[in-house]
């Protein structure tokens, strides 16, 4: 080292190489007085503070860390698959949620919409519900929804043909997931709606549903379930009893291996009036199956949160969660007819409780999944 420490005093003896090695010259010389240290300590410097990085907020209010856990309560960051939304147009949105009881979200949705040059509306809505008794159904339902939407949003074929092609595409997407994960046999339901101007065309396979709910007049269910319950209703059983029964959630058609066929059952509706086109999985309709009952729920939530379809979708999901959230919950909503809100709905006064006739069913979540291979 070239820089001799300035703190080293310069003794008169300089350390030249001729000096003998220490301890080679017999006993040490007599000690010289040394400086006695008084032990006076200097102040310690402060430690620098770390700067925070944003990784999202936990429901406890704490911040998530990059490691995927809350920095306050330690809860794992929810999987984005567990709750996701879409809101492509002011009047169109969808919400997909894991619910309460299920560990995974096997529901899926996809929505698309645009205004043409004249201001006419074109939209497509897809909801799929993965069969929870089959593995990889979460991947399958999402792939199916995306594949169907791709067809519905790009094809110029008549809506009915488009729905058939979209269902084929969805079924192929499900099959591809089955190839990608060879030990799995993923399956899902399918409901899709195409809206062009005032005409809505819907098609379904399985028990996910489409409802048309004009602000004024009678709400309708546009789809017919491919389920044992539907068959029991046809045979004369009361719907609330059939849907709550052991076969209530056993579907008779689906997209996936061993499916009997997957041609969608197609229906149309004039949606020129102000109102809502609503597509949903059974996670929602389990708690309000009859169109009137579901419409009452929708109107009550609309009263609370307004006509923004995303806010309303979230509100409907929250409502289903509040009823138990026994299954995954998906709802897709399109506001039609340009009406801001119902001036005077048919049943303007929203009852404090759900109307009679559904009171029994809605309290009973779909527990039959484990018994009969029904989807959950």
């Amino acid at each position, binding site marked *: 080292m070239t820089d001799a*420490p300035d703190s080293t005093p310069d*003794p008169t003896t300089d350390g030249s190489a001729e000096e003998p090695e220490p*301890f080679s010259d017999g006993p040490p*010389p007599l000690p010289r007085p040394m400086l006695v*240290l008084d032990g006076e300590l200097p102040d310690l410097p402060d430690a620098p503070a770390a700067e925070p990085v944003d990784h999202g907020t936990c429901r406890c209010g704490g911040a998530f860390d990059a490691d995927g856990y809350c920095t306050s309560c330690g809860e794992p960051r929810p999987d984005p698959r567990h709750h996701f939304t879409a809101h492509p147009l002011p009047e169109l949105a969808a919400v997909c949620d894991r619910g309460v009881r299920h560990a995974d979200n096997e529901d899926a949705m996809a929505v698309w919409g645009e205004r043409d040059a004249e201001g006419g509306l074109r939209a497509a809505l897809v909801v799929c519900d993965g069969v929870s008794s089959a593995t990889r159904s979460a991947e399958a339902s999402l792939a199916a929804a995306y594949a169907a939407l791709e067809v519905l949003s790009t094809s110029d074929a008549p809506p009915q043909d488009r729905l058939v092609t979209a269902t084929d595409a969805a079924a192929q997407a499900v099959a591809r997931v089955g190839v990608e994960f060879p030990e799995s046999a993923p399956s899902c339901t399918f409901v899709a709606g195409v809206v062009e101007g005032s005409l809505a065309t819907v098609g379904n396979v399985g028990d996910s549903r489409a409802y048309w709910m004009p602000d004024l007049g009678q709400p309708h269910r546009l789809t017919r379930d491919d389920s044992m319950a539907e068959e029991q209703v046809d045979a004369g059983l009361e719907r609330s009893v059939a849907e709550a029964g052991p076969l209530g959630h056993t579907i008779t058609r689906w997209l996936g291996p061993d499916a009997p066929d997957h041609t969608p059952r197609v229906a149309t509706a004039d949606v020129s009036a102000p109102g809502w086109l609503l597509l949903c999985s059974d996670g929602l309709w389990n708690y309000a199956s009859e169109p009137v009952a579901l419409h009452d729920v929708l109107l009550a939530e609309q009263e609370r949160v307004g006509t923004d379809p995303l806010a309303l979708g979230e509100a409907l999901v929250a409502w289903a969660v509040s009823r138990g959230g026994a299954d995954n919950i998906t709802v897709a909503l399109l506001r039609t007819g340009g009406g801001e809100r119902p001036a005077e709905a048919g049943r303007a006064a929203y009852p404090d409780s759900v109307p009679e006739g559904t009171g029994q069913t809605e309290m009973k979540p779909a527990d039959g999944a484990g018994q009969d291979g029904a989807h959950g």
Partner: protein
Amino acid sequence: MADFTATVHQNEFLPDGGTDVHGIVSVTCSGAGTVAPMSSASGESGEIIIVDVSGSMDVQGVQAAAYAASAALDQIIDGVWFAIVAGNHEAALCYPNGTTAAMARMSPQTRLEAKRSLQRLAPGGGTAMGRWLLAAGQLFGTVPTLSKRHAILLTDGANQHETPDELSWAIEQVRGRFQADCRGLGAAWQVAEVRRIAEALMGTVDLIRTWDGLPQDFAQLMQQSMGRGISDTQLRVWAPQGAEVLFVKQVSPTLEDLSGRRVEVNALTGGYDTGAWGDETRDYHVAVRLAPKAIGQEQLAARVQLVVGGEVAAQGLVKARWSADSLLTAQISPEVAHYTGQTELASAIQDGLRAKAIGDDVTATSKLGRAVQLARETGDEAATSRLARVVDIEDAATGRVRLRRHVDKLDEMELDTASTKTTRVRPQ
């Protein structure tokens, strides 16, 4: 640049209502490099050698200590700041031999001068280690650019010229200012007293049986310190809101309960100074008590981080997952079991020797018997052989022992000082 990794060994599954989560976090440093020889972004290094020159050392002892110190000087890299303190009932600055408190940069010139200064040492006076520590703190304070500060302290006797309170006070004054490896020469020093210093100053304590063992030990200590190029490090343990950190212990290579060293980083995070790192692995045992959650729920029980210069260099996550599956929840991590046994072994040895010292042979026999049993269970053969020099082992499996009638004091002290050295988990 050094690379840190952290591996967690634990069973994250808790039974319904389970609250206590244990994890062993193994932190490994590689590529540490040597200490920064000259001024750099990571700061500079300082070394102080504290040599006991009390009357009991005698001329021969002081000469041997001076020779050992010169062996340590040979290991200090040029450019590192250093000083030598001669300690008795006072603390004198042996080198640099000026008239103000100062440290010097190592160079061939200063090394030679320092060795000559060591020749000036002569025995005399008593022992007041607290003053030695304060003096070292004072000297380190004269070089503000130091980021790594390490001292070697040699003593041969009990701290007779200070009260235990005075020593405690001095230890608290210098805590966090430097690290100190402490060595006791011969049989006249107090293991508990010197261990107190070493634990507070994140260093080791060891017994040097005779003078001729000193130079090699000093050279080795200094060499190891030169290899610890990573300073300004801190172990951080985060636990969730509402949780209680039961303890944080270093369990390998030596046992150190860090719990009392905690400084608050934030409301949920404690920081524990770890001293400088070389290329090595250290294992930490972290225990956290949580409020139980429902079956199927998951919660992060602890984030265990090694922080270098304020940046997280490695992180291990200790998790909790409540399960109804008793096959999962009943398993005990082999690492947790091993170090729990090693911790109990150290306590049993120390408690046994303490009881033996005050003539409580019943407690001593029972504790040392338990120690023999634990040493066998954890496969710690070195501990077994040290124990065998203090007790006659009749049945290691049941821990049946008899206190030996004639025990070499040095054997007993060695059992004591080595009690905190742990073995690693045997491969499964």
